[in-house]
């Protein structure tokens, strides 16, 4: 008897009996979130590499490392979610091509390879320097990483930059593809009214940029404080502009999507309204509240053009707000979609568990992974372009 009330998500109205177990949990909430952070961070590095916007020079390589470290962890929530994780490679070995999900392994592997290559080209000069200046085992590691190429002549470096630019050019449609694809996994499901939208890939992509740039701002400010340097003013202005533009577009498109649902007024639209008023009310409030707050602050900054400490502090607040707003958005989409019953006659309420394989603890562990990896990566390959991080005088030489 007690099992029913323990396991089942409480519901109102009528839901199909099998629906009372929510299939995709908080792990699937952070999967698109982590992938989104990758896409966002990558966009910033591309703005420097491809479009040559010098403003982003100081954060470009850090953004690249951030994208790589988060990408390593993007498949992890899926792995923890699988009922049979040992069969995780089956879609790679024997893919069933009509499934959107079958492509994930290929898309993700392609992207990891691309990021690894790009990082190598972006850091090759540093690796060669480090292989000459380090001692002990690290010297061997760096030497191995040069892959036998220690030519750092201006001609060779020019070639590096060219290749890095080509890779970043491939990476831009790649990042759009990776994240648009995640949106497609949800948007292509005709059974769920809350997901089934042609705008879903665009919404996922743009909110990814918002959260990714937000993450970069937060990390850049924190690392600068930790390293006791002032964040680059020009970079912050550039990030402010990117953040403002992408936030404006994503908010308009999200609002349009909601409007479409209600304007079309298809069967069950009233239940969608109940969903927003009920199970995801808190999530929607956080998502829209923080987004509009950040938009107000960013718009004010666009007009008043603050500099220095004021700019950094407000950008930090905006970045953090938008990171939280996008988590809430992912929750509202992933969990909200499943809380709306396929019967369109009922609503479920999902309560995440704290312990267990699929729980908030797992989420916490998986989400701390990229940060720890990024810390180690920045120790191994310092991405900073300022004099402080180049004791061997490389920065001075430039």
């Amino acid at each position, binding site marked *: 008897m007690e099992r029913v009330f323990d396991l089942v998500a409480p519901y109102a109205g009528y839901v*199909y009996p099998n629906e009372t*177990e929510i299939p995709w949990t908080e792990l699937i909430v952070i999967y698109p979130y982590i992938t989104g952070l990758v896409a966002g961070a990558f966009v910033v590095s591309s703005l420097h590499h491809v479009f040559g916007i010098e403003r982003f020079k100081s954060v470009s390589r850090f953004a690249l490392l951030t994208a790589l470290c988060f990408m390593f962890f993007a498949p992890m929530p899926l792995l923890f979610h*699988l009922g049979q994780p040992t069969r995780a490679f089956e879609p790679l070995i024997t*893919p069933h091509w009509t499934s959107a*999900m079958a492509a994930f392994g290929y898309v993700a592997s392609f992207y990891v390879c691309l990021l690894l290559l790009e990082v190598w080209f972006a850091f090759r000069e540093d690796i060669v320097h480090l292989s000459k200046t380090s001692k002990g085992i690290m010297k061997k590691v760096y030497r191995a990483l040069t892959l036998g190429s220690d030519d750092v002549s201006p001609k060779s470096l020019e070639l590096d930059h060219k290749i890095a630019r080509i890779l970043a050019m491939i990476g831009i449609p790649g990042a759009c593809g990776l994240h648009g694809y995640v949106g497609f996994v949800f948007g292509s499901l005709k059974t769920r009214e809350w997901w089934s939208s042609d705008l879903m890939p665009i919404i996922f992509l743009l909110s990814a940029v918002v959260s990714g740039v937000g993450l970069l701002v937060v990390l850049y400010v924190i690392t600068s404080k930790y390293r006791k340097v002032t964040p680059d003013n020009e970079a912050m202005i550039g990030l402010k502009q990117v953040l403002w533009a992408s936030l404006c577009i994503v908010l308009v498109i999200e609002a349009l999507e909601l409007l479409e649902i209600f304007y079309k007024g298809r069967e069950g639209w009233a239940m969608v309204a109940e969903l927003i008023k009920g199970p995801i009310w808190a999530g929607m409030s956080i998502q829209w509240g923080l987004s509009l707050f950040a938009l107000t602050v960013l718009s004010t900054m666009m007009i008043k053009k603050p500099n220095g400490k004021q700019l950094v502090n407000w950008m930090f607040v905006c970045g953090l707000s938008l990171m939280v707003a996008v988590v809430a958005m992912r929750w509202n989409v992933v969990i909200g979609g499943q809380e709306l019953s396929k019967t369109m006659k009922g609503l479920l309420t999902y309560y995440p568990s704290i312990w267990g394989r699929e729980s908030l603890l797992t989420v916490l562990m998986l989400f701390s992974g990229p940060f720890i990896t990024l810390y180690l990566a920045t120790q191994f390959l310092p991405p900073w372009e300022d004099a402080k991080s180049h004791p061997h005088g490389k920065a001075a030489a430039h």
Partner: protein
Amino acid sequence: MTIQEQKENTEETGVSRRGFLGLMGAGVATTAVALVSVDSDANVGNHKSDKKLAFQQNEAQYQESLNNPPKIPNYDWNKHKWSYGVDVSRCIGCLRCMEACKAENSVQEDANHHRTWVERYVYLDGAEEAIVDSPADPKNIENVGSETHFRFDNRYKDEKVDKAFFVPKLCNQCEEPSCVQVCPTGATFKAPDGVVLIDTNYCFGCQYCIQACPYGVRSLNAQRGTAEKCNWCYHRITKGLNPACVEVCPTGSRVFGDLNDKNSPISLFIKNNQVTVLKSEMGNKPNLYYAGADKEVS
């Protein structure tokens, strides 16, 4: 074992010596024996210390069925086109089908895993919309005091009811199944005889199919980490028997047969009734036909 050998065995054991009962008869007898033994076993195994019911397949039996599936030499899946019908006006909501399904297919013994269920639609006096519930409703479970035995409670006894009816639900074995479309490993597939099957050796439990099914008939078996759903008792129909739910239905509300046979129960059902399918707008082309379904049924 061939169908012929099976028949001979049945005759040898003396369960049924009446040859004229033929194949179906043998099926009924076997099922009846199975269900009787299930019931008595269930009672034996129902004591407090052993919560698992006796008819639940254990892990060893499950592995055996995967590694050494029963041979069906005389079955050619290209020669059949199975289909299923539900006569809504005949269903009395006795829910024997649900219990038979759980026993026959060893479905998980709780309220949120069902391969088939029955919905109750009630229009109260003057109401425009029906109130719907199923045996998985906590009030119904509380009324029976068990998640393995099913009965609708009598919650409307003091209300004035305009109209009420029961609607059995199960897998629609769609012609264009969205579960098959989204399966990343190809573990779930459409057999030529019309049934959508799951190869649990390939399923990796991503639950995308559960999301994609418009009818909510799929669920995850958490112990096995793989998806589950109704397969019209494939192990029975390939031997010429009816699915368990059809077999136990006392009113003939559930109809099953081969569309290739013009005189099969399902062919006649579709011919003699104005039938409809559920959620046709999904484009899944269901293979489950309803006669007398109300506008509220979806």
